[in-house]
């Protein structure tokens, strides 16, 4: 349909432009602040003309906060979460959509409930479990009297312990185990024609073969969209990494930005802080730009 409504067009573009300015203005100010020196950045009001110290500030921020290894940590964690989500969600949705087994609906609702309990809500018990993954089993054994029995018989005191604090697994696993992606896949799998499933069965492909050869390639747009969203989400995680990484070697870039924020009594080095922010913002930006084509296709359900 071709619409000829120049006035409406003008207003819609105006609204889009205003929205664009609102979104981009803060970033522009951050970038400008990052280019000033210590004196200019603390001028009130701050000059909106870019200064000349941009690269110097970037370098200072990089070395002060030791961003290299932290960006790597962040990347490992965000990539792990994204990959984990993409795989786990695909598998759970496959199970829910393609198999009939007792308790299927129960499983479905259990997964659904995790949506209502984000990490922030259950952060204390999650911390306890990550501090000692085997603690629930220990509790079960204690309650059932099993550990008492073992101690009596063998004289060995049962004390299970497997801590994941300050480890990549501890950072990644609790963030992977939620349902967000499952539903995206579920909706997509429901649109895959049954005949395709049947054709694969006639061709002799078993369930797993069908999953790997047919379903996964077909859902690559979904995977890209989910992967991108999850990468950004994990990259921007703050509370969880802050809580469980006490060791500098596992610190995340986002949480370490606070190193750059001027302390009370210290020099107000906001230009360095802003430069650091820009550096930390860059990897997610690159991911979005690279994945954009797939990303958009994955979120609009219909292809053809």
């Amino acid at each position, binding site marked *: 349909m071709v619409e000829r409504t120049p006035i409406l067009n003008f207003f819609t573009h105006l609204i889009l432009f205003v929205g664009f300015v609102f979104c981009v203005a803060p970033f522009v100010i951050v970038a400008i602040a990052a280019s000033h020196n210590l004196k200019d950045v603390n001028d009130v009001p701050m000059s909106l003309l870019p200064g000349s110290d941009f690269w110097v500030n970037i370098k200072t921020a990089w070395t002060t906060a030791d961003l290299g290894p932290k960006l790597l940590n962040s990347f490992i964690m965000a990539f792990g979460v994204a990959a984990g989500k993409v795989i786990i969600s695909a598998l759970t949705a496959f199970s829910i959509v393609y198999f009939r087994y007792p308790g299927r609906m129960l499983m479905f609702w259990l997964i659904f409930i995790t949506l209502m309990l984000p990490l922030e809500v259950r952060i204390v018990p999650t911390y306890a479990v990550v501090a000692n993954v085997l603690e629930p089993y220990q509790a079960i054994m204690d309650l059932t009297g099993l550990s008492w029995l073992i101690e009596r018989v063998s004289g060995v005191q049962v004390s299970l312990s497997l801590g994941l604090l300050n480890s990549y697994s501890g950072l990644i696993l609790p963030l992977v185990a939620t349902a967000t992606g499952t539903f995206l896949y579920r909706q997509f799998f429901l649109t895959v024609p049954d005949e395709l499933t049947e054709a694969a069965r006639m061709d*002799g492909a078993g369930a797993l073969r069908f999953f790997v050869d047919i379903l996964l390639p077909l859902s690559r747009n979904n995977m890209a969209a989910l992967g991108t969203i999850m990468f950004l989400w994990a990259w921007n995680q703050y509370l969880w990494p802050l809580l469980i990484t006490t060791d500098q070697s596992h610190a995340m870039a986002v949480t370490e930005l606070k190193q750059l924020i001027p302390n009370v009594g210290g020099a107000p080095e906001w230009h360095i802080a802003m430069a650091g922010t820009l550096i930390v913002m860059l990897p997610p930006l690159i991911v979005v730009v690279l994945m954009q084509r797939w990303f958009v296709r994955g979120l609009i359900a219909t292809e053809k």
Partner: protein
Amino acid sequence: MASITIRGVKKNYAKTQVVHGVDLDFASGEFVVILGPSGCGKSTLLRMIAGLEEISDGTIAIDGTVVNKLEPRERGCAMVFQNYALYPHMSVAQNIGYSLKVAGVPSAERAQRVQAVARVLELEHLLDRKPMALSGGQRQRVAMGRAMIREPKVFLFDEPLSNLDAKLRVQMRSEIRKLHRRLSATSVFVTHDQVEAMTLADRLVVMNGGRVEQVGTPAEVYSRPASRFVATFVGAPAMNMLEGTVTLDGLSLLGGSRKLNVSRTGLPVGAKVAVGVRPEAVRMVAPGTPGALAATVDLVEELGAGRVVYVDLDGAPFSIVTSETVHPEPGSTVGLQFAEADLHFFSSETGARLDVFKASVPEPVL
């Protein structure tokens, strides 16, 4: 090549029964068409043979082996689906070769066999394309290729031509027929299109309401329909049906308003029957001709080679197919004549065929 034996097969979905005990035997190398209106259970039956639906009761045996509990891949069947069901992300070659890949056939041999199949189906120049870039007829051929490459014992076709346009359908029909002659694998073809059924079948199975109504060659089914349903379902335009009662000297039709003299029906006087006559067997004569039924012309459809005349017989619709170049005006009166041998009698209650002219029915030549 394999024979298929179906014994007492039933299918229930929760509480509704869709197939009510079907017994059929398909000979090795035969091309069988299952014909029926939508919802008659024909596709369900096919899918039970394929192994895509569980069999609620009864047994299906392929080559004497009961396959009820076997997975589709263990039955030696290949299936062509209505919507082709090609894998959209794979090229034509990958689509055709997928079953071999699953079976672990080395890629050199696989490529060779894909080439061979593509040559038969004239798909060689399309092997690198994705299904999206193919026309309907080409997709259909790829779907056939995918079935052929496995060299199956049994070919199953689930209304494979219903998505094609009329011209392509005729073309694919003859291609399927040629292919069958060449491979001579047992084939079961499900359709609701009776022209497709008549032209393709060695043997026709007509189904209705989950039951088999008739099994026979297309000529048999056409000339001696076993029930009122088959009589009206096979043939276009449909067979004319007139309700009547058997009298001493023939039939009283349409509540007594018309009489038809018929010699020795052998049916008890007073029996309620439905009398059928094919539109092709009716001749139009001048009104008032002795023995002819007078009727009013409603509509004439020009078909080029002939025409269909729809007339009104005291409120009952009636059609005539004629190749004569007559053009009766709508509203005019014509006389209808037909031979006794062309009449089909069916019980008004059960719809079953009543045999009255056994000796005198000639085998029509199709």
